[in-house]
């Protein structure tokens, strides 16, 4: 098995009037690790989807090992030995690794001779640089193991060119380092060519040989990583020489405890354990970051604080008294929640942008009975301007906006006015670099003015950068708390995995 090289020449692709890609070229040397960089919406996934036959490019061509290749459907890419590992896993959790591998083959026989298959798989696994337990159910594997299984599956399918889409987004720092190291060794041994789609510059510097950078659907630069610094890469990605500076942290958290969670329990849900949090405090003027591998109860905690999930036992206190997330209480205590998947959890898709921006404030006018529609329109207009929300009209249904603009709308709404407790779940998800910087500055400004902030994020760097204190969640429990200053990512990673 030898690695193959790929060249994309002058690829263009549009959806309606939107040009997702125009004139993009990329050359990936065989046996290398190639980074495909760019912000959200830069066209990275469109490019690889064209390469893998999920989309058909409007213009341009692909060369595979220097020969022109026609890739019109996924089966064509398959036949050429091109494969992809998605951000979200595609294994069946209730089946074993062996079953998942055999099932993924194109030519699965009607009756499977498991003895022969197991023997063949054992033989195949001996040639692999990393081992996965063949008889384990996929559902019982940790995220890092699953990711490895996905890669093994691609090798099992004789793929010689692999695209990894944000492969470390669900891994702890240790898992990420291990996985990327293994992948790099595979490539450098000449078995496989790897393209990694990412926006994490640290990983690029450590594991990637060469990069191609896209910006707004266009080619923005390429080169060897050893010749390029982080500043060059940032400049190519966002079109400006410097990433915006980190917001400044002013003053110390107050002594006053604003949010206190005590002995909180929720019911188990869909095979997952419920929450079981002994104690979690957030002080005024403090950002507490919740780190954890996605799916360890962070979502449940946000739902409890937002009133979307009932409590089985224990209590949530705001300013020292019971908090039930009712409208009266959330308004009186100035509690705001920014949920994950804001369109599904925090917006009303068929209602207009104006209506959605007023979900917090529609009943705060002098008259409790009548809607003050002119005040609503004015409030929405100022939010649209302040947050740079791009909408064709303020009265389009919010469901037609792009993910980043929906996120801006929810940010604008939840940050509006006097906020004393702010619960944020992945606040920067889907935003571009500038908007991320703006949002982080807003979070920090709120903290500096005395707001208590509970920040739940899948991005450990974000948590370390913004938080005063870090709490690690594992299996519905807070397993460790530490000051963020000087916190060791490796140690946090161990707790995220449940090794204490």
């Amino acid at each position: 098995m030898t690695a193959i090289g790929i060249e994309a020449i002058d690829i263009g692709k549009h959806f309606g009037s939107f040009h997702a890609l125009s004139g993009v070229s990329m050359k990936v040397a065989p046996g290398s690790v190639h980074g495909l960089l760019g912000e959200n919406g830069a066209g990275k996934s469109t490019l690889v989807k064209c390469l893998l036959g999920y989309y058909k490019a409007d213009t341009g061509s692909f060369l595979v090992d220097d020969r022109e290749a026609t890739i019109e459907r996924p089966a064509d890419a398959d036949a050429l030995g091109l494969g992809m590992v998605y951000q979200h896993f595609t294994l069946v959790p209730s089946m074993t690794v062996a079953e998942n591998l055999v099932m993924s083959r194109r030519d699965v026989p009607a009756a499977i001779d498991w003895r022969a298959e197991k023997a063949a798989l054992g033989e195949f696994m001996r040639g692999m640089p990393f081992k996965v337990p063949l008889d384990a159910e996929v559902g019982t594997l940790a995220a890092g193991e699953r990711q490895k299984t996905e890669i093994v599956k691609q090798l099992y399918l004789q793929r010689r060119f692999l695209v990894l889409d944000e492969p470390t987004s669900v891994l702890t720092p240790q898992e990420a380092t291990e996985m990327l190291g293994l992948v790099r060794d595979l490539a450098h041994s000449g078995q496989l060519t790897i393209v990694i789609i990412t926006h994490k510059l640290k990983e690029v510097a450590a594991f990637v040989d060469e990069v191609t950078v896209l910006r707004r659907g266009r080619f923005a630069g390429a080169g060897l990583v050893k010749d390029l610094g982080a500043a060059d890469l940032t400049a190519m990605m966002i079109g400006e020489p410097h990433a915006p500076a980190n917001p400044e942290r002013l003053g110390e958290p107050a002594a006053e405890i604003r949010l206190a969670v005590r002995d909180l329990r929720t019911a188990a849900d869909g095979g997952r354990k419920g929450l079981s949090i002994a104690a979690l405090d957030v002080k005024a003027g403090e950002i507490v970051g919740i780190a954890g591998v996605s799916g360890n109860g962070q979502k449940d905690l946000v739902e409890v604080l937002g009133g979307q999930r009932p409590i089985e036992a224990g209590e949530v206190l705001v300013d020292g008294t019971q908090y039930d997330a009712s409208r009266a209480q959330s308004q009186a205590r100035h509690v705001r929640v920014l949920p994950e998947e804001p369109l599904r959890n925090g917006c009303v898709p068929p209602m207009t942008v104006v209506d959605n921006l007023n979900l917090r404030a529609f009943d705060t006018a002098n008259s409790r009975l009548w809607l003050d529609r002119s005040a609503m329109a004015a409030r929405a207009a100022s939010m649209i301007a302040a947050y740079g929300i791009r909408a064709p009209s303020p009265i389009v249904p919010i469901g037609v906006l792009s993910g980043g603009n929906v996120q801006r709308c929810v940010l604008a709404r939840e940050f509006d006015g006097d906020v004393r407790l702010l619960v944020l779940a992945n606040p920067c998800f889907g935003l571009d670099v500038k908007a991320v910087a703006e949002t982080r500055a807003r979070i920090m400004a709120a903290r500096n003015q005395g707001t208590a902030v509970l920040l739940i994020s899948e991005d450990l760097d974000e948590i370390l950068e913004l938080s005063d204190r870090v709490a690690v969640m594992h299996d519905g429990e807070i397993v460790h708390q530490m000051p963020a200053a000087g916190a060791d990512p490796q140690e946090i990673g161990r707790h995220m995995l449940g090794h204490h």
Partner: protein
Amino acid sequence: MSADATYPLRRSLEAVFAPLLALLGALVLFSVFLVGLGQSPEDFFELVWDGAFGSWFSMQNTLQRAAPLLLTALCVAIPGQLGLVIIGGEAAVVLGGLAATVCALPFVNTSPILVLAVMAVTGTAAGALWIGISGWLRAKRGVNETIASLVLAYIGLALFNHLVEGVLRDPASLNKPSTCGIGDANMLDTVPWLEIHPGLPVGLLACIGCWIFIYRTTTGFASRVTGGNIRAARLQGLPVSKLILLACAIGGGCAGLAGAIEVAAEYGRANASLNAGYGYTGILIAFLARFNPLTVIPMAVLLGGLGAAGGLLQRRMGLPDATVQVLQGMIFIAILASDTLYGRFQWFQPRAAA
């Protein structure tokens, strides 16, 4: 910022265009059906026009049928704004009529005003209570409101028949079991000069009132939020259960009032005539109107007109009564299917700001 100034207008046009296209589609489909029966679609539609809107007499007939439909459609439309599909309006109508009649009986010898006031209040309350049960089951027990309201409709109709044919029966009503009458002196007269059904102005006011409630009050706004995304409503701390109960009570109250008015204006007593399918046609109208209380008005007139033309069709073309129901069914399917038309035509869509 926003470059698309005509978008609001185009969006309103889309809301008119899609159902009209659907209506046209249904008429074409129905014409094929008629040709298959060996009848002329042209004659048919001409007769429908004559029978429904062609003369003042047929117009009165149409409006008389439309009057209760306005109210029973609200019974579906208001809960519909909260994302609930309530289909048990028929029971609210008959129980509203029954409660109004029974409660009015002790007062028949006082003043007509008092009798009518008692009827309005008790009829509304009975309907609100009956549909409120479905709302309560939904809000507090997570029972599917469609199934609950359907089953409760059967129970309500059985209860009605049991009472009217049993303890509440006027012994003098031989062929058609009925309750005692409220007396001619207490009956509602037609609207002066126009001589149209007295339920019509009540229904129109109810539609306008419900529209104002839904689109101009904070409670209505909260209801629409709940209907659009219940998770977002919970996140905002909105009292979802109370809003569901309120909407069901308002809707049921409208249907119950329809029953009370039918008794007061038409029959003078509660009997099986109340069970005329108004509740079911109301479902159709509410869906045609996409739960908008103002759009209910033209849709109720349209469906009332089709009903009014039924007799004429029977006499002139020899078509069975059910023909009109076939047309209703086709319109219903076409309008539901037309929901997929929204967003299909680029011209109506917002244009990206340059």
